[in-house]
């Protein structure tokens, strides 16, 4: 979203006596310039990429050493002050929404690539390093970092770890969790802790897998060791047009059934290609109801063989038109449209709301039909871009945030789509995280006993519940309140709970 709008929960007023006490303790070991508390200094941190939620933090700290991070955490823990970690601030679910009675811990100064080990094909990077900067720094070695979220020019690796980000190539090369060897960080008490290591596994429970995707609620990351993989010799992309979206969905299933794992497999519907084409001129077929981008990479021989197999499957699946990129320039042009989908949509509407549900691929036709019905019901447009290979949908609801009713309708629209994703056997978030935005839908996706288990997991790392509390995992109280407002087919969720 790119204009003011406010969905924030009740804003917490700053307790100035408390603020003074916390600032004094932090300034005892931090330079004054790195501890901010005046309203004009803390205001820029009031939201992340989801600007509909805003809260000015009580204090902002900007450490530049691990020792400072450790002491900040130990101090806050001792004083019982909640801490919200923040990376680049590009998150789309409000995971870095500050707390009015808390400290916002910015890791913006942790922006260095510490070391690249060519032989081991790993890089040690600080959390503030941008995703794309890693690949750029190792390109001369013929290596790259595989996960490539669309926001890769801006998003940082610390945030990728917090959200277990994917990207357009994750079907073949995996998510963040598959491409990180080690996370070094600090517990809420300020103790150094390392999850994973230089080997492929570590003793005991796989805490690395738990920490990745935990939205900064279990530990504060200060360094990430990522795996680097050899850059494929060649890549080629097929652009295929379809005269209906269901056929395109079936073509995706047919490619997989043929035993092919494409390097990338993306779908865009007609409204999305129209918006993109005006903006970047990627050369998309504007008559198609849906287009597929289907990429192969590997050695030249491998790509030639795989592209041949893909072409056969796509044409058999009813593609009305297709073209294969003849040069690297053409390939990048084909992708430029997909990667620019969000900003392109931003140009045709004052605001847009990006969803992130995942569904089993076979339900693609059904969800798109459902979204079309919701467009009519709420009187709002919704172009779709879709990581077709892995079932992750990004419908973009277009609205005007200055119209409170439109904002409200957008929220309802989004909630209905997420609930439909759950009903289809999918999930409310594939890669953007729950944060504050989707916390109510967690009450639908999980039973009270499962939510209780998540809270127990958090407590295993953070007994006092001080690290990024109030995100991701709702309290039963919150679910009961949400349930009260949210009755489906006459059935009240969690009838066993007392109402508040």
């Amino acid at each position, binding site marked *: 979203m790119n204009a003011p709008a406010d969905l924030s929960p009740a804003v917490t007023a700053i307790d100035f006596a408390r603020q003074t006490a916390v600032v004094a303790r932090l300034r005892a070991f931090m330079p004054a310039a790195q501890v901010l508390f005046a309203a004009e200094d803390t205001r820029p941190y009031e939201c992340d990429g989801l600007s509909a939620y805003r809260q000015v933090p009580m204090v902002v700290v900007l450490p530049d050493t691990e020792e400072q991070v450790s002491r900040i955490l130990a101090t806050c823990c001792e004083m019982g002050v909640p801490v919200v970690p923040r990376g680049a601030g590009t998150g789309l679910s409000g995971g870095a929404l500050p707390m009015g009675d808390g400290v916002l811990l910015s890791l913006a100064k942790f922006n260095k690539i510490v070391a690249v080990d060519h032989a081991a094909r790993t890089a040690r990077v600080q959390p503030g390093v941008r995703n794309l900067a890693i690949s750029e720094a190792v390109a001369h070695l013929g290596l790259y970092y595989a996960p490539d979220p669309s926001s890769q020019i801006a998003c940082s690796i610390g945030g990728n770890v917090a959200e277990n980000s994917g990207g357009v190539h994750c079907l073949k090369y995996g998510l963040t969790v598959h491409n990180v060897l080690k996370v070094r960080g600090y517990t809420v008490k300020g103790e150094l802790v390392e999850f994973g290591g230089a*080997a492929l596994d570590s003793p005991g429970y796989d805490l690395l897998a738990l920490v990745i995707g935990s939205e900064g609620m279990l530990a504060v990351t200060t360094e990430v060791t990522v795996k680097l993989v050899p850059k494929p010799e060649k890549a080629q992309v097929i652009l295929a047009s379809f005269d209906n979206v269901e056929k395109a969905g079936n073509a995706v299933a047919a490619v997989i059934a043929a035993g092919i794992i494409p390097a990338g497999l993306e779908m865009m519907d007609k409204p999305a290609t129209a918006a993109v084409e005006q903006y970047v001129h990627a050369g998309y077929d504007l008559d198609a109801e849906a287009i597929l981008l289907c990429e192969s990479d590997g050695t030249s021989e491998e790509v030639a063989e795989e592209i041949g197999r893909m072409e056969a499957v796509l044409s058999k699946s009813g593609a009305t038109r297709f073209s294969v990129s003849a040069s690297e320039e053409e390939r990048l042009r084909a992708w430029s449209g997909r990667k620019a989908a969000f900003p392109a949509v931003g140009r045709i509407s004052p605001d847009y709301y990006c969803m992130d549900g995942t569904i089993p691929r076979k339900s693609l036709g059904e969800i798109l039909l459902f979204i079309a019905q919701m467009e009519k019901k709420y009187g709002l447009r919704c172009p779709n871009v879709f990581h077709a290979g892995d079932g992750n949908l990004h419908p973009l609801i277009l609205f005007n945030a200055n119209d409170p009713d439109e904002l409200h309708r957008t929220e309802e629209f989004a909630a209905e789509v997420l609930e439909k994703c759950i009903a289809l056997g999918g999930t409310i978030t594939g890669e953007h995280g729950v944060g504050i935005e989707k916390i109510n839908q967690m009450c639908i996706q999980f039973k009270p006993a499962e939510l209780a288990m998540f809270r127990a997991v958090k407590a295993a790392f953070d007994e006092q519940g001080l690290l990024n509390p109030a995100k991701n995992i709702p309290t039963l109280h919150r679910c009961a309140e949400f349930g009260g407002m949210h009755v489906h087919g006459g059935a009240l969720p969690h009838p066993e709970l007392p109402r508040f």
Partner: protein
Amino acid sequence: MNTEAFSQAIRAAAADGRPLRIKGGGTKDFYGQSFAGEVLDTRDYRGIVDYEPTELVITARCGTPLAEIEAALAAHNQMLAFEPPHFGAGATLGGVVASGLAGPRRAAQGLYYGSVRDHMLGAKLMNSDGVVLAFGGTVMKNVAGYDVSRVIAGSLGTLGLITEVSIKVLPRPVANRSLRLALDENMALAKLCEWGGLPLPISASAWNDGELCLRLEGAEAAVKSAAARLGGEAVSSAEADAYWQGLREQTSDFFAGAAPLWRFSLPATAPPVALTGVQLIEWGGAQRWFKTSASAGEVRAAAAQAGGHATLFRAGSASKDGIGVFTPLDPVQARIQRNLKQAFDPRGIFNPGRLYREF
């Protein structure tokens, strides 16, 4: 069978604080710390719940024989990419997940293969109240809540009874070919490291006693050109199949005999480890097996020096008692792991002590 019988047995055990020993085919009984507990047999709770080849996901109950899963996948030309060892007839899917063990393809290059946890999409876990909790799901991208289903992989049944799992599957490679090269340990490690940085379809590697075996898998053209580039002697497909299976199942000659078997998990770039006994290297250098009579202290010191850790995989004629099977944890890790066990199993009834004696 339904889960009600499990629920009753678990609630009864929880009420009396009696430890349970969760057991499928019993093929991995040797693995982990020894401990006492009443057997909770999972084998009657079996069957594939859902398998749609085009979704690349299989969902099955814990007692489903691994062989049944493999046959169902093979019928659609798919596989469990991490190539799990059976270690005997009757291995179950629950045991595959609980042990978290992967076979030769673990460190494959090119298309992403990985370990058991890397392919976990969802799991159902019965807690000590006899209630089934569901985590994750059947889709490949899912960040709602903590990623509990991946933590369950390799937890040795200590976090609860795994009743059902959803696992990502992959197509079988179109072509494969195995090669044999005569190389000493230093040279083999250096070459594996060099090839690892190149786009080559090496899906498995094993070095022992002056001989390096490589398996190439992928598109026909890629396998052919890599084979030409790497050289060495071609191995017939029958011989190669037997070789990689013997390695995965630890039935090949190297694993015979009663000497303790240690598993080293190291950075692939670690130099040769100096230890008495015999060695077999897998996963491009990242997994090294030692049959040695060296003391646990010497073994662990060697692993730590090489930047990894060592597990007493099979005690053989030696006793596990007095030796921690898994590398001891530092105090912060130990506290978090103990807390996690407590969070999942507050009554301490699920395989207590199998992973670490303290929990």
